[in-house]
């Protein structure tokens, strides 16, 4: 199991499009991916749960990845969140 915290740097926070990117990425891995933001927790493979976190710019989220391909998955999330969800 790997855990890592991020501060959201993209303008929109986890809105519809960034949320969709995140969910698509989570779906590509076998590992279970959980996001915690404030007091809410979401399965990263569920768009509705991720959106309902309502995570915004400047907020800290914690990612937990657990499964056989967790290292690869963490690297992929690092890139996506580090690039601010490829927001223009």
């Amino acid at each position, binding site marked *: 199991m790997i855990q890592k915290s991020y501060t959201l740097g993209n*303008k*929109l*926070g986890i*809105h*519809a*499009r960034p*949320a*969709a990117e995140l*969910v*698509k990425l989570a779906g590509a891995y076998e590992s279970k991916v959980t996001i915690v933001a*404030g007091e809410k927790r979401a*399965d990263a*493979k*569920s*768009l*509705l*749960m991720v*959106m*309902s976190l*309502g995570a*915004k*710019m*400047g*907020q*800290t989220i914690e990612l937990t990845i657990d499964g056989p391909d967790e290292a690869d998955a963490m690297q992929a999330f690092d890139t996506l969140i580090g690039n601010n969800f490829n927001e223009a």
Partner: protein
Amino acid sequence: MKQIMGKGVVDGVCLASVMTLSEDIEGVLDRYAVSTIEDEKSAYQQASQAAVGQIEELIKNATDQTQADVLNAHLLMITDVMLTDSIEAKISGGLSAPRAVMDAANEMAAMLGAIEDEYLKERSKDVIDIGKRMVRIMLGISAPDIAVGYHVLCGDDIEPSMVANMTSEHVGAIILGQGSTTSHAVIIAKTKGIPTVVGLGNHIDAIENGETVYVDGETGEIIISPDETVKVRYQERVAAIKAMAKQYDAIVDQPSVLKDGMHLPLAINVGNPTDIDSMKANGAEGVGLYRTEFVFMGKAKAPDEDEQFEAYRYVVERAKPHLCVIRTLDIGGDKPADYLEIGEEANPFLGWRAIRICLDKPELFKTQIRAILRASHYGKAAIMLPMIISESEVLDSKALIDEAKAELRTAGMPFDEAIEVGIMIETPAAVMQAERLAKVVDFFSVGTNDLTQYTLAVDRGNPKISDRYDYFHPSVLYAINMVAAAAHANGIWIGMCGEMAGDPLALPVLLAMGFDELSMSAPSVLKVKYLMKSLKVDSVLLDDVLASRSAVDTRARLTHYLEKIKLKEEIHEKDY
């Protein structure tokens, strides 16, 4: 013939027959006979797969990325474990498949709708959208066929996927009872250039299927069963819109001057720091209102001085050599930030907000002031205080500004020593004290949105009374004129930064009142700049407008005035 007014959100005009979008899903649902749990589950599975197929087909036909993004989100939602688990549980509990889908979708929508974020609230409509899609498939109801003929779509609300599916070839305009500028439907309509008017309330119930309507997406005007004169007007507008687009492009880099060459700077309002990019593109000079709330909202704690400094410097630097007016924190119970602990208020617009919070929390205020002062070194900035009602608030604020300056000097940090300090005029209290206030500040900026709301005691967010909210009301005009006179009598400049500043109809009277700067949303700049070229400061007009007896009367007087000017221009052009 009947005229109704809504809020124009996508520019353009249309004259066509109405297709109403109302449908009775609930009625059909009630008559649906429930089969075994197994059968219902398989009905749901089939509908889910069919819906995925439909959306994939729509994605293939999508003409731009925004539509495709929305539809891709729909695909993810349909197969979302949270939704599918909820639906399966409801079916196991004895509900019919379509009822389970609709209930689950409504629950998810309510959950998203409860989040304090306008954008996510709108997303709840996407969940309803996919729910309805599956239910229609199960019940054999076909969605209204919008791919035939040429119509104005009319409904209380519209599903985003329906807008994604439409083309301007078949849909001439969209008019909605609800809807906001941030709904997916409106965003997609914008990318497709389909004229759209929202916020018509129950007026839409009066519009029958098949009736002819004229829709103006710019002014929000809708005319039901228009007569010949409206039809002629429509043709003229179509030709004019085409010609205007060319004219606007030609004046982007020209100075904003009146007919006699007098220069009046047009500035833009900035919320998100990156909005500054639209200043140059629209030929504006400076920022008349930089709303700093963006830097404060949606955070776990107040942003520190460096973070604020970066956000302010970004805009000040890019506005250079023009002025960037930075408004200090204007936050309250309606747009909360948890760390301020504002709490629930019965009346947030009359509550603990803006300058009231800042003066009660001097450290928070001084941190912002220091950040603004530091940014002033990188261009030309000014400080603007919101929600002022008394001279003492200005004097207390200025004392804190002086303290902040002294701290920066001690720390050896450079800033503009001559930075101007002004106030927003947005309360009737400030209007009545304008003479006194003008003596202690460097400038005024009229915030017409709040000034109208406070002067008329009309909540602009309340649809039952929003038609009474109008800055052309004589009392509002009177207030603005008083303030302008007080500013000039005391040798300070006066600007305007509310929606009125970008309204071409208001321009002649604002010129006559002697405004020194107008600040508006970027898309309005070229419209105003273009109209300015044919106008002069006209004191006779001011007397005429101040004699108006109602908002409707004011609008009529100004419309008449502009028509006369336009006619003169045309004659002049012919003679030339």
